[in-house]
Each structure stands twice: as C-alpha cells, then as structure tokens.
C-alpha cells in the first residue's frame, strides 16, 4: 500500500511540519529595503557606557517619528495637549510649575512633571516611584490618564491612520500598520536620544582645552561631592535609586498610596516615602523641586537639607551628616559656592538644540 512506502512517509511528514511551522502568530520584522538607518548616539566621554534597547533599537527615522509625535497635540483625547505641553525643552523638559492642571480633566496632578534627559541610563523604573518598567511602557500612563492626556488608544490608532504622513513613517520605521505599541516605541526612541552632557562642568571634567571652573565653582564642586554625591552620584548626578529625603514624616494612604512613594509599587515597608533621585544636571532651570514641586528655589532645597529634615522610620541614613544627627551642615557661604557650581551643570546646548525642538 502507498502508505507503507517510505517515499510517501517523508514528504507527508515534511508537509505536516511545514504546515505547523508556518502558523506562527509572532510577527518577525524581516529585512526591508530601504531599511531604517541605525543610529549610534554620541555619548559624552565622561558618561557610563550606553546600551541600546534590544527590542527597540535606535534608528534615525524612529527618533524623528518620536519627535513628531512628542510635539503632536493629537495624541491627547481633546487634541489640545501634547507631551511637550508639560515637557518643555528649554527647561529641561519639565514644566516650571509644582503640580500642573493643564490636563484634559482640569484637575491638578499630585506629582510634579519630571525632567526628561539621560533616560537611556534610567534602568530602575520611571516615574517618581519607579512604577513604569521602561520607556517602552511609560507613555501609556500619561496618554491614558484622565487628568493628563485622556486618550483612548484605539481611537488614537484610527486618528493616526487617517494621516498619510504618519502611515508612511510608521510603515517605514516599523514595517506594519500603525499600532499603539509602536507609538510608544517611537516616543521611547526620541527620549532615549535626549542626552545632556555638554555643560561647562562637562567640558571641564573632560579636560577640554580652555575649559576651566573658577575657584568658587571648584569649591562648590568639592562641597557637592562631600555632601550630596552619595545620592546624586556620578556623572549622571543621580544614582537612579529611591530615597526618603526627609521632606515628610507621615505618609497618608489616600489615592491608593500615591503619597507613599516607592512603597505603593514594592509594598516593602522599608520603601515608605522613598522617591527617585532626580539628576542635578540643569537643576537651576528646572524649578520647582521634589516629587510634588514644593520647594520653589534651590535656596529652599539647601535650607531643607541643612535645617529642615524631618525624621521618620525610613528617612535615609545618608542624611545623618551632622555628628550622628539628622541634617547636612551647610554654611551660608557654602550654599553660595554650591549654587555657583550647580550653575555649571546647565547645558545650554541641550536646552536649545534644534534636534530636539518642535519640528517645523
């Protein structure tokens, strides 16, 4: 019989295997021509090494698509608010107010808009409490929140598909129909490209010709190293970790733990009231300060650390710098030196770089 003939057996088996292997649900983006242009970012010499995202590698066209989306108010439910509405390039991609109320609902937020730069090195969770795994998940928060952009993602896909330029760009970058996941990925690529490492401090640190800091600035640097660098660590001026810096002594559990910092994500009691260390880069132009923007000036921040720290079971041990007592002693003249140094961290090239500005 035919079925017993080995010459029938093998083709039939091959056919079976072929049929099952071709039913893959996973879309693999095959090589396309022309393909998006891979980008190797220019990383400042004094920065830690840069690792690109494995699932969302940077391409020139991907970054550009992300930039266009970042400044496009159609990403919001009422078509009036873009990412840039709260993340302004000239002030470090923050918004200059403590708790904005320009979101769709008109209700003020409970957290201050964070700065956006050097996020390529933020690997410990985004948002003040680290609730977002990475840049490829983060935008879903503000996009869908009723108090921020209040967008229905299915409607967003339909809106973008009606715009030929977007259809063309998405197809070129991601090789398929527009999907929310790719909107987020494009935004992530743009944000990953936001690198601030060209301040006067950086030129000095890299030993570039003619780059000097004044004696007062150097004194300020030395004070920051001694008093602040254990949290505002390294060339990024942040350890990308969570600390309770003594701005409160009690943490109500209202709003599902919103005021409890990292605790509401980890449920570890040791994390009560801990928030992410922001970078000190560009700090003088990114007021107000803290996760709720409660300090309007750097003077208030320095006063807080020197005489205003509040005790609680989870306040950070690194803040006990005053002979075993809570507090960081800073004299008036030391405060002046520190401020003068912090000014050297302002990176005008970044704040006004046309590459990151609103597209024409």
């Amino acid at each position, binding site marked *: 019989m035919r079925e017993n003939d080995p010459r029938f057996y093998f083709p039939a088996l091959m056919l079976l295997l072929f049929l099952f292997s071709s039913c893959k649900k996973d879309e693999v983006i095959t090589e396309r021509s022309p393909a998006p242009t891979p980008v190797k970012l220019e990383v400042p010499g004094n920065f830690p090494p840069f690792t690109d995202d494995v699932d969302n590698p940077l391409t020139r066209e991907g970054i550009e698509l992300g930039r266009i989306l970042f400044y496009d108010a159609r990403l919001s439910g009422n078509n009036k608010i873009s990412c840039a509405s709260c993340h302004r390039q000239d002030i470090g991609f923050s918004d200059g107010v403590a708790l904005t109320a320009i979101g769709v609902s008109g209700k003020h937020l409970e957290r201050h808009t964070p700065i956006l730069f050097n996020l390529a090195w933020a690997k410990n969770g985004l948002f003040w409490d680290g609730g977002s795994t990475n840049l490829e*998940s983060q935008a879903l*928060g*503000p996009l*869908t929140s009723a108090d921020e952009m209040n967008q*229905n993602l299915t409607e967003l*896909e339909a809106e973008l598909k009606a715009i030929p330029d977007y259809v063309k760009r998405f197809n070129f970058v991601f090789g398929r129909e527009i999907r929310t996941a790719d909107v987020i990925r494009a935004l992530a690529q743009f944000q990953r490209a936001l690198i601030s490492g060209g301040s006067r401090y950086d030129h000095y640190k890299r030993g570039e010709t003619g780059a000097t800091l004044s004696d007062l600035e150097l004194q300020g640097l030395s004070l920051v190293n001694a008093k602040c660098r254990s949290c505002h660590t390294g060339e990024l001026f942040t350890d990308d970790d969570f600390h309770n810096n003594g701005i409160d002594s009690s943490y109500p559990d209202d709003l599902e733990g919103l005021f409890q910092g990292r605790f509401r994500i980890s449920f570890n009691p040791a994390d009560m009231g801990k928030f992410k260390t922001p970078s000190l880069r560009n700090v003088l132009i990114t007021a107000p300060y803290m996760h709720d923007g409660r300090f309007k000036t750097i003077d208030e921040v320095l006063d807080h650390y020197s005489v205003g720290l509040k005790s609680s079971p989870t306040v950070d041990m690194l803040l006990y710098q005053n002979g075993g007592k809570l507090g960081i002693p800073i004299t008036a003249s030391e405060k002046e030196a520190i401020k003068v140094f912090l000014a050297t961290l302002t990176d005008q090239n970044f704040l006004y770089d046309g590459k990151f500005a609103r597209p024409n």
Partner: protein
Amino acid sequence: MLTAVLITSCSKEDAPTPEFVETNLAPFSVEFDNIVGERTLAFNNSTTPYVNAAGEPFTVSMLQYFISNIKVATADGKEYAVKQDSSYFLIKSADKATRFAKVKVPEGDYTRLTFTLGVDSLRSTMGVDKRTGVLDPAAGGDHDTGGMYWGWNSGYIFFRFEGNSNVVSDDVNGDPTGKKQFKYHIGGFGGYSAPTINNIKVITIDLTTAGIAKVRKDRQSNVHLFVDAMKVFNGTNSFKIAEHPNVMFSDYSVNIAKNLAQMFKHDHTEN
C-alpha cells in the same frame, strides 16, 4: 507511526488512543462559562440581584480575566504546554465568543488540565512587540471601559470584576460618584527590579471525574468549566463588599486572589 495516524477512521467510535507525538497537533478548547452561585451570569439585574454569603445583594457590570499558559497531561504523565505565543486569552463575559480558549495540543487522551489565571511575569516584562493581540495594552478599551493594563505600574490587571451594591458607601472609601459601584482589579506579577505582590494563580483541573478530553484531529474536544464569580466573595478569604469595595494593587488583593483559584469547576467535557 505516521501511517497509523493517516489511516485513522473518521468515525467517532472508540479507536485506540493515538500515540502521543508532539507535532501531531489537533484542536482543543477550554470553555470558561461564567456563573454566579447557582445562577447564570446576567448584567445589572437589579430586580433580582445576587446575594453573597454576607447577605449583601449585588449586580455585576463587568467580569473579564486573562487565561494563559495552558498545559495538558495524559494519565501516564506525558505533558504538553501550548506554544506560549498562542496561549493568552482574555475572557470577557460581555462577549460570549471569547469564552472559548482555542488551542492546539497533540492527539491523545488527557486527564489533567493546567492553566494560569493572569499573565506570567516573564511575558509581563517582555518588550511591547511580544505583547500583542489581547496582551496589547490598548486592547480591552481605556481604563473605564475595560482596559486591562495599569499605566502607572506597568503590568496587567489579571481579573477585573465590577458591579453595584447598595452597601457601597458614597464617601471616598466607597464610590464618591454615588453610583454604589464596587471595583476589583486584581493583578501583580511579582515585580521587575524588586519583588512585589504576586497574584498569579496556576490552576490544575483533574478531568477524570467529569470527563477526560479525547483530543483528535477530526473533532473539537471541549472542556467545559464553570467559573463561579460568587467565590470572589465566598471563597476561603470571605469578605464583605461594604468593607472592601475597591481593591486594586494593594495588600488586600492577595486575599482576594486566593479566592479566585476556587472559582473554577469542571462540569463536563464534549468530545
């Protein structure tokens, strides 16, 4: 071996159980039939509300949950895990068509079914490219209309159960909009960079009592499960709506998650 499969007759008579060959896949489905106590699930039936063990009347407005990582096992211990990419389902009780989790497993007689209520931690942290279809964070609608993804704490809502009860207060602890709504959004995959709440539940069903699954190429074996939403309230960690009307990502969700595993009961199998 292959020849034996190719000449299997088309009749439904009890032919000998086929040899277990992993590549010899056939259709199989698990049906998630939602009930509430002894009654069928109907929405917003305020004239005849359901009543939980604490005596609280309630109606249901939304019930949806993720089922994933389906596995089957034979009596002699051969196991098969459905290819993970094809093993994620969002069961939406408002859409009857979604109650079937349709997969492919090798031909054989299965005495044990295992599945996960929720999305496993590895998939939860994969790139968005690997989380498509029902795992797309945009799927299911926005937060108010049935979205199953937390934007503020990257991760999926595994089990979303909402309804109304007159025991819900009108203050901030209950429903400040005055609509007497209760909401249970149970999720938590264990955390990404640090350990946190893990409410993933793996459920194993013994099929021998109510009917083993005889999976064959020419038919659709269907394991019919009842999923009793009353167990949310009446399970081991029994609780009152009035005391916990809103439970989302919090310590108390762990108690409720333990009840969820008790919802599933095997009623019968259609072969």
